[in-house]
């Protein structure tokens, strides 16, 4: 029984990280049909931002304040990645609308350059981020210990999810975003500046990647290639969940995170990955456009 609870917790913990990473991808992909392979590098930017914030706290503030650096690191990571995303959108992505495969290749090139940049600034070896003391230890329930760090990440993901929900479904600019997503031409006819919506959406997706990077610093050391470990899994979440709805992404993340943990528990890590992949392909036989898909009458969608 305990083993099951622990595996379930691990699975949900992995799912929450995947969800945080895939959240940004799914809105840029869903809205703009842009495959952003540099998303992993935006995660890296968020992680290094947390690292820098930590160092600033350690250098300039009294030790008693150090524990609270993380509370500041989250919004700062969001803002830095947001600005990066905005620049990327205005400088490159907007030339690539309507060419998803080309956007994939170009952003992969951008990702390479950003990785090299990080290597030049911070050095190739991994750097460690010391997590704040109030996240050490864990909550004991019966015989199981749930680490606070993982619980914190799950809580962070829930807050992000809620914020995204409110933004997309309750705010004016979220409504404009959905309008552009469902029918770009019609939305443009009705006076929505699709250019601005695109830039905003891409920047928000990037900002969420920054938060994801910040959260990853709690789990392990960070290096220039930190994003590449997660990026393909995150894309699989988007493919499995379907594009354009939050619930699809949540489902995809839970599906992959839980099955990954279970299969790895039953078999080995490498065989587990193969089984997850086989399950995803099998699932796509049943629902080729993912769990949730926006209905459209367009032929070439």
């Amino acid at each position, binding site marked *: 029984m305990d083993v099951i609870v622990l595996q379930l917790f691990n699975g949900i913990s992995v799912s929450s990280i995947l969800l945080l990473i895939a959240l940004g991808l799914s809105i840029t*992909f869903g809205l703009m*049909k842009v*495959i952003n392979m540099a998303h992993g590098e935006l995660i890296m930017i968020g992680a290094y931002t947390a690292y820098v914030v930590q160092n600033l706290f350690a250098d300039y503030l009294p030790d008693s304040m150090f524990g609270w650096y993380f509370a500041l690191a989250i919004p700062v990571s969001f803002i830095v990645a947001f600005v990066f995303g905005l620049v990327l959108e205005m400088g*490159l992505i907007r*030339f*690539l609308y*309507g*060419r*998803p*495969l*080309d956007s*994939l*290749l*170009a952003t*992969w*090139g*951008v*990702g*390479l*350059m950003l*990785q*090299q940049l990080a*290597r*030049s600034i911070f050095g190739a070896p991994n750097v460690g981020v010391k997590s704040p003391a109030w996240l050490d230890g864990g909550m004991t329930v019966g015989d199981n210990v749930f680490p606070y760090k993982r619980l914190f990440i799950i809580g962070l993901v829930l807050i992000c999810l809620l914020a995204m929900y409110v933004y997309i479904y309750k705010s004016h600019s979220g409504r404009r975003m959905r309008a552009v997503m469902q029918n770009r031409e019609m939305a443009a006819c009705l006076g929505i500046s699709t250019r601005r919506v695109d830039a905003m959406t891409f920047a928000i997706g990037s900002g969420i990647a920054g938060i994801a990077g910040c959260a990853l610093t709690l789990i392990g050391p960070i290096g220039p290639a930190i994003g*590449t470990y997660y990026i*393909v899994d995150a*894309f*699989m979440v*988007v*493919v499995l969940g379907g594009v354009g709805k939050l619930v699809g992404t949540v489902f995809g993340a839970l599906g992959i995170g839980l099955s990954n943990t279970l299969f790895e528990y039953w078999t*080995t*890590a*490498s*065989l587990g*990955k*193969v089984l*997850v*992949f086989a399950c*995803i*392909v099998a699932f*796509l*036989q049943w629902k*080729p456009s993912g769990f949730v898909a926006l209905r459209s009458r367009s*032929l*070439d969608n």
Partner: protein
Amino acid sequence: MPIRKLSAQRLWLLAAYAAAAAALFCAPLVLSDFRLNLLAKFLAYAIVALGLDLIWGYTGILSLGHGVFFGLGGYAMAMYLKLDASGGKLPDFMDWSGLTKLPWFWKPFASLPFAIAAGILVPAMLALILGYVTFRNRIRGVYFTILTQALVIITTTLFIGQQAYTGGTNGLTGYSKLFGYSLGSPETKKWLYWVTVMLLIGAYLLCRVLVKSRFGKVLRAIRDGENRVRFIGYDPALYQMVAFGFSAGLAGLAGMLFVLHVGIISPSMMGIVPSIEMVLWVAIGGRGTLVGAVLGAVLLNYAKSTFSESYPNIWIVFMGALFVVVVVFLPKGAAGLFGQFKWLRRRKAADEGADGVRYPAV
């Protein structure tokens, strides 16, 4: 365009091809052993590029999984060489990992014909199966690309994880003889180079025949409007599957040659970065032209080996920048650039489109 002029142009083109082939055959006379080996490796890469161009440039399907097919071919050849080198005993790395018996799937690789057949057919079958489950359901475009990328990840993890059967991170190495001839000797290297040139020319001609045939026309039609092709009564999935399988087979062949030239195959040679580099060769050379793919593979690798020896960091930035520039400004690659120059000379043909090649819309 008058017929006489066309035929003159064709003659020039044929002469250029013949000269290029002759130059390739004569290369061993001028190049040092080291350079020759390098060139042989690049020519093997060019075979991958041909297949990738067929599926991406002509059919409009971007596969980021060709590293896997290349690697499977390489492993098939390496398994034969390894068994040959260990002379009936268990290969050394299996010994270290505690295996006592040769695994069943290793046994047939003791025969060279089987290994060669497997090196081409295993990748082709894998591609056919993946194509069957995706194209039939009209999973295409970016979805397909992401699936191929996931295929790369799981294959590399599998190969690294199953150390006892695959040699793990180190891959398969430590073999030196083919038919009793040393793979390292200049004489053998020369022969292997010629074999590679022959196979490259063969692959080129085969691709050319395919592209010029009705089959190739359907492929291009699928690229430009899959649904319209479906409405005419073709089954695009079938064509996509065959093209994908064929291109995977070519990648497998190239992988086998690569092992013979380089003497090692490991998971890092079939990972995401090599797979994407293969795409870059085609992109820079010009998708939708076979010559472009070959030239792209050879030139880019030449540039890489010159650059990265002295400035590995700059090479990475350079490669990233190249991707951005080519994709944004030169969607037709170097071959397209050449076409543009021709177009400048002959403005009359302008409204036909430079050379009738359209890069894939999706």
